[in-house]
Every structure is written in structure tokens, then in C-alpha cells.
């Protein structure tokens, strides 16, 4: 599988702020990548640089094997749907769709119209008079119907209710299955997309904390609970990300290379073991100050239950 995007030592500094700090990764073709991280972690900056809308301070960026800046061949194959997208004030919804149809060579008009129906988007309304949710929907329709080989969705769901979000995930997955392409989905609603995401990138304070297959990650982080001594014993086999204790029992989130043997070990120690959800993993990794540190360092960061 070839890399659609590869990034080496990418750094972006604004006045006094390091938005991205020596980030390196690559994105495989025809996968759904989840770009996760807190607000201000650097997700949007990263996508802006990959789409040549912003400029890197240093480092290498390659998209479809070339640098994207002023590169029509690369840019015409990218769709970047962002929450902050603005539209010219004289355009109606139908004009925006017509503009997208002009620009994207793989645009599927029939699919676009179907999505407009599904999301009940008012075609004749001026874009400046759309509600926040409708504006998000317009972005989603453009992003899906463009069928761009590389599609970025940067928090595309602002103002959408749970039903509309589910519709988005369903159509994204269905269309992706039918027309495989590389998708980067940046989101806060991790639980909602955890089934969708095949590869996880986690950014925190401009640094890349995770670059791993979602499937592999699921087994890597577990939560054990039971007597403190037993939890201590188990936690030594990995790095502890978080702990809550109550009386003589503790509940710890531990990262390590856990196979079936680990499950047996937990059972023999009298511990309950469960795989952590993607959301838990992300929260634990970004709140434990050094996600990749050894168990001893993370253990210093124990947190008593309130």
C-alpha cells in the first residue's frame, strides 16, 4: 500500500507558539484516518499545510509524491472541508454546489442531490442565511460528492444533531466502501467515529503522540481494577497512564503489549480487565503529561478519585 501523504519533521511556529513540533508520519492509501487531539493541538494547522493553504516553518511535506504548494496536479485531487470555511456572500446553496461541480473532476451530481435530500438542505437559500448546522451539512455534501482521492474533514459536524451526524457517518462509510479513497477525519467526538477509523493519529500540543492502526491500539491499552497491590503488580508490565483509587481498590489504565497471556495474568491476580475505548485512550494519553514514558514516570502522576 503506497503512502498518499508523507510528512517529515514538520514544524510550524507562529509568533512564540509552536503549533507543530517535528511531526513525522505517513498516510496509507484508501484508509480512513482519524486525526484526534484537543482544541489547539495543531490538527487544523497540519491539514492547512498538507493542502498548501498554510506554510510550514520547516520540514518536508509530500502529497501524492509531490509538494502541494501551487501544485495543481496535487491540489485538484484534494477536498478539504473545514468548519471555518467561508463562502462569498452572494452565493446560494445551489451556487456552491455548482462551483464544486466545476472544480472537482470526480464530482457526482446525482450523489450530491441525494445528499441534499437526505440532509434537507435548502438549495435556494443564501449561504449567509444558513444555520450553523446547515453550513456544516453543505460542507459535508461537497466533501462527499467531490469524491476527491484525498479528502479532509476538519470537524465537519458543528451544529449537527446526533441524527444528522449518524447520517454523515453512514453515508461516509457507504460511499467510501463503494469508492475507496483516503480520508482524514479530524474530530472530538471520538466514541462516535471509533468504529469508522482504521488508523489513529493523535496530536497533543503540536507533537504526534500516536500513529497506529486502530485495531492494534485497542489491545494495547487496558483498564484493570482490583486490590491496589494486584493493580501495582499488573501495572509494572506496561506504562500506567491513569489511576483512580478508592480505599483498598484501584482502577488503572495501562498501556503495553497485551496479548491473551496478559488477560490470564490479570485473572490470576484477581483483577478485572477490560480493553479501553478509543476515547478513553485518547483522554488518558493527552492528560498523562508524558504518554510514552515508562510506568515509573506515569505512576508519579497518579490521581486520587475526588
Amino acid at each position, binding site marked *: 500500500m503506497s503512502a498518499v501523504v508523507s510528512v517529515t519533521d514538520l514544524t510550524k511556529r507562529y509568533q512564540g507558539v509552536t503549533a507543530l513540533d517535528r511531526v513525522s508520519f505517513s498516510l496509507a492509501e484508501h484508509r480512513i484516518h482519524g486525526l484526534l487531539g484537543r482544541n489547539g493541538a495543531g490538527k487544523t494547522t497540519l491539514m492547512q499545510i498538507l493542502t498548501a493553504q498554510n506554510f510550514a516553518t520547516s520540514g518536508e511535506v509530500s502529497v501524492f509524491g509531490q509538494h502541494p504548494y*501551487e501544485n495543481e496536479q496535487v491540489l485538484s485531487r*484534494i477536498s478539504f472541508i*473545514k468548519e471555518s470555511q*467561508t*463562502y*462569498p*456572500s*452572494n*452565493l446560494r446553496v445551489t*451556487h456552491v454546489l455548482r462551483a464544486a461541480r466545476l472544480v472537482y473532476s470526480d464530482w457526482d451530481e446525482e450523489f450530491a442531490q441525494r445528499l441534499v435530500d437526505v440532509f434537507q438542505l435548502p438549495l435556494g437559500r443564501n449561504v449567509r442565511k444558513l444555520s450553523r448546522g446547515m453550513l456544516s451539512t453543505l460542507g459535508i455534501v461537497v466533501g462527499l460528492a467531490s469524491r476527491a482521492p484525498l479528502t479532509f474533514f476538519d470537524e465537519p459536524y458543528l451544529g449537527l444533531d446526533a441524527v444528522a451526524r449518524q447520517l454523515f457517518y453512514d453515508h461516509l462509510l457507504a460511499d467510501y466502501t463503494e469508492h475507496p479513497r483516503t480520508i482524514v477525519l479530524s474530530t472530538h467526538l471520538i466514541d462516535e467515529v471509533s468504529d469508522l477509523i482504521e488508523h489513529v493519529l493523535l496530536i497533543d500540543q503540536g507533537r504526534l503522540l500516536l500513529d497506529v492502526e486502530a485495531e492494534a491500539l485497542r489491545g494495547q491499552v487496558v483498564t484493570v481494577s482490583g486490590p491496589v497491590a494486584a493493580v501495582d503488580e499488573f501495572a509494572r508490565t506496561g506504562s500506567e497512564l491513569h489511576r483512580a483509587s478508592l480505599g483498598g481498590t484501584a482502577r488503572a489504565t495501562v498501556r503495553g503489549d497485551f496479548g491473551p497471556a496478559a488477560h490470564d495474568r490479570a485473572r490470576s491476580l484477581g483483577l478485572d480487565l477490560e480493553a479501553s475505548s478509543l476515547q478513553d485512550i485518547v483522554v488518558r494519553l493527552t492528560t498523562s503529561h508524558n504518554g510514552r514514558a515508562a510506568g515509573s514516570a506515569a505512576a508519579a502522576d497518579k490521581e486520587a478519585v475526588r
Partner: protein
Amino acid sequence: MNRALTVARLQFVAWRSVVGWPWGILALSFLINLALFSAMNEADDFEPTTGGLMSIYVVMFVASVNAITQDFPFALGLGVSRRSFYLGNVLNYLGQAISYAAVLYLLAVIEEATDGWGVNLTFFGIPFLLVDNPVLRFLGFAIPFLLLGFIGIAIALVFKRWGVNGLLMLSTVALAGIGGLVVLATWRGWWSAIGGWFVDQPGWALLVGWPALLTLLLAGLSYLTIRRATP
């Protein structure tokens, strides 16, 4: 180049508002003037001249500022390169300048043929634009569209790249520069020489040559600026 054409078409997806505003406002301005001077009922030798034609150029200027503040982020969001966006804009302006100038020329000819719409009104023909050469006369209508368009683009790009501080800095530099030159010219007593230079310039140079040169300069500077602008 294909991509630039796409951008030019992109800017016309809502063509009714693109064409409607400049011509709608010009038509309104014309009708008001026509009504006003018909109502005045002055003597036959009264030949009013209005500045109403300016309105269409002002709309063009405003539209060109909008092109950078609104169309630019939209086009880049759709995966258009800065170069293509810029070239598309140039094509768009050339197309509008040529077609609009042709219509204005035609209206000026009609105005002359009808003795100022029956009321001696000079609306489309402007006295200092009166040259006999039809090509120059056409360019006299067309070039101001391009000049104002690129002034609008240049100013909006300064804002886009350097924000409000950039605009303030530009104003400060312009004020200091022009003010300094005025002081210098007054102090050295250059005004009569400057006046003489203008008088000596042939009509085509003042009407077409210098504005075209300034337009090209602004177009070049704008291109360099947009290359590093972020939407």
C-alpha cells in the same frame, strides 16, 4: 490555464449578482439624472454633465475587494492554487472590462445621436474622454475598470496578508510619501514644471498609457503578494 478558466467560470456561478449590481446601479444613476434634468426644463443651451458614470467603476472596485476577501478563501477551499485563482481573476476582469466598455461606448454613441437623450444630457460621454480615435475611446472606457479592479485587489491583498496593521502601514507610507513629494515640489517650486509635463503629455498617454502602466505594476505586485497569502 484550464484551471484559470474554471476559476473565471466559478466567479460567475451567481452571474446575476455579478452583472446585476454594476449595471443596476448605473441604470438607477442614469434614470435619476435623466428625470432630474428633464424636470429642470432649462434653456436649450444648457448642457449638463454628470459624474454618474463613476458608479459602475465604483461597483467594480468594491467587487474586486470582495474577490480577495471572499472568493479567494472559497476558491482555495475548493483546491484551487493561488496562481490559478489569480489568473482566473485577471481573465474575469479582462472579460468584464472589454464587454462593459463596449456597452458603454455604444451608449455614448447613442447619447450623441439622440442629443443627450432628448434633454442634452451628457452621461456616458465624458468631456475629457472626448478623443476621436475609436480605439482610444474604447480603451478610455476599459482601462479604468482594470485600474480600479487591480487597486481593489492590491489593497485587499495587503489586508489579507498583513491584516489591519498592514493597511495602516500602507496608509502611513502613502501619506508620508505623497505629503513629502508635495512639500518637496512646493519648496523647490516644481509645480509649474509638473503642470507643464501634464499639458505636454499626449491625450492617449493620460487616458490610456499611464493608467495601463500603473495597472500592470499593480497586477505584478499583487501576484507576488498572493503567492504567500493564506485564505
